């Protein structure tokens, strides 16, 4: 069993639990539950940052475009974006698809949860600033151009399921070698590994905190692998990250989605 923290819906505090990431079950004390048995909340209170083009395959797919207009050169520093608080969503909740959109892009991402105020880190000690790891589903409306910030494509309500829990840092032997799988309606649609990250976990923290600090509770999503699968209304989406667990949501009509945070 693996040590983790979770938040029950309606509760203000984190509960220490032991999880079985393969079966998505957990125990509190001597009682055992499946994630479908209980209502889990987003285990995040901080700011969620996403990282663009951090998988080798994703950058390779841009090919020569990185030298052409409008990009002019390959990315130098990490390219980040913010998934604001209205996007936060939780295990088991619907992901709303706008009426004029056919498919949503599923952005399976390992999330680094920050444990201590982290600024100007170095490679040797960066890992000390990590509290743990979680799963982010960084949803986008598919868009081709990466030139301008994609707020209207990536920051819609409910566009960032996170969870189901935070696995404590020392429970993950090597965050740079975790298999990530995406299933849609129980069919495997994507498989990749954090071994293919351009900036590995520590390096990413070093390069990000060179220009901005991260606060305890913030999440840095490490990136989305190439060939992100598409999902349509009614599809059941499950992201599995080895050693962390799985995060499951269904695509629902936007009109039927009532964002709990705004109630």
């Amino acid at each position, binding site marked *: 069993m693996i040590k983790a923290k979770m938040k029950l819906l309606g509760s203000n505090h984190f509960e220490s639990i032991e999880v079985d990431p393969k079966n998505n079950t957990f125990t509190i004390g001597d009682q055992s539950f499946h994630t479908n048995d209980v209502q889990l909340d987003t285990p995040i209170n901080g*700011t969620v*940052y996403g990282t*663009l*083009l951090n998988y080798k395959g994703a950058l390779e797919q841009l090919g020569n475009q990185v030298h052409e207009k*409008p*990009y*002019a*050169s390959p*990315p*130098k*520093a*990490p*390219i*980040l*974006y*913010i998934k*604001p*608080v*209205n*996007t936060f969503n939780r295990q088991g909740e619907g992901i709303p698809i*706008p009426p004029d959109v056919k498919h949503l892009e599923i952005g399976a991402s390992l999330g680094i949860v920050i444990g201590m105020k982290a*600024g*100007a880190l170095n490679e040797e000690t960066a890992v000390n600033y990590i509290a743990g790891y979680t799963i982010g589903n960084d949803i986008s409306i598919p868009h081709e151009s*990466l*030139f*301008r*910030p*994609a*707020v*209207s494509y990536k*920051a*819609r*309500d409910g566009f960032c399921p996170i969870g189901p829990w935070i696995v404590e840092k020392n429970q993950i032997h090597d965050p740079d070698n975790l298999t990530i799988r995406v299933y849609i309606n129980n069919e495997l649609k994507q498989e990749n590994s954090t071994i293919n990250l351009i900036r590995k976990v520590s390096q990413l923290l070093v390069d990000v905190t060179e*220009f*901005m*600090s*991260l*606060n305890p509770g913030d999440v840095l999503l490490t990136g989305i692998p190439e060939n992100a699968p598409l999902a349509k209304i009614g599809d059941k989406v499950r992201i599995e990250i080895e050693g962390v667990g799985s995060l499951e949501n269904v695509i629902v009509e936007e009109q039927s989605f009532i*964002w709990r*945070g*705004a109630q």
Partner: protein
Amino acid sequence: MKKARISYNGSIHEANEWEGQLQLDDGRIVKQSEVVWLTPVEPRTVFALGLNYADHAAELAFDAPTEPLVFLKGPNTFIGHDAKTRRPSDVEYMHYECELAVVIGKTARHVKKEDAYQYIKGYSVANDYAIRDYLENYYRPNLRVKNRDGCTPFGPWLVDASEIENPMNLKLTTHVNDQLVQEGTTADMIFDIPTLIEYLSGFMTLSENDVILTGTPKGSVDTAVGDVIVTEIVGIGRLVNTIIGDEVFTNR
């Protein structure tokens, strides 16, 4: 009413302007120079507009956008009035941007232009510094340019919306070391405040203390360590910031 959040004598207070001084929430009257100014609200989601004044777009050699160019900012980047902002030693072009900040007052979803003002709590001033050396053409302006620690001074006051008759006709200025370097009016915004609220609330829910930084007019020039930058909007506030260098940061 002009409200502020400040730190005084070891604790945090709300305060009102009181005949040139500050009246704290516990009744004490203190001098403005005696307090540490915090941001006038604790911002939730913060939107910033790029190229929202035609003259500034032309200055940067861009055509005026046909859709608002919006980016987001994290909490690390905000600091209060009368604070200090770091200029890294290796940069060649770091400029201020005087902007009208619009603070949302209540949940807003699919708001129409004509109703938009009902959702505004108040106004403030922001200085949305940019370091152009770090610009890259991916999700531009990228966070390395726009989301640096302490690079968005915000304040001093939250001015109640009811006191501003027409926020679309306010004069903005920036002075560097008392010299006028930037001058404009909110009347020249490409996308005005109601349009921005309609646009944003059309695809996402806005909530209390979300903030929209509405863009800057032309007049961007480089700043140097030691410069005192005053971004001011008539009737809203005068936001002071001083540029400091890497020397005081032991990890830089």
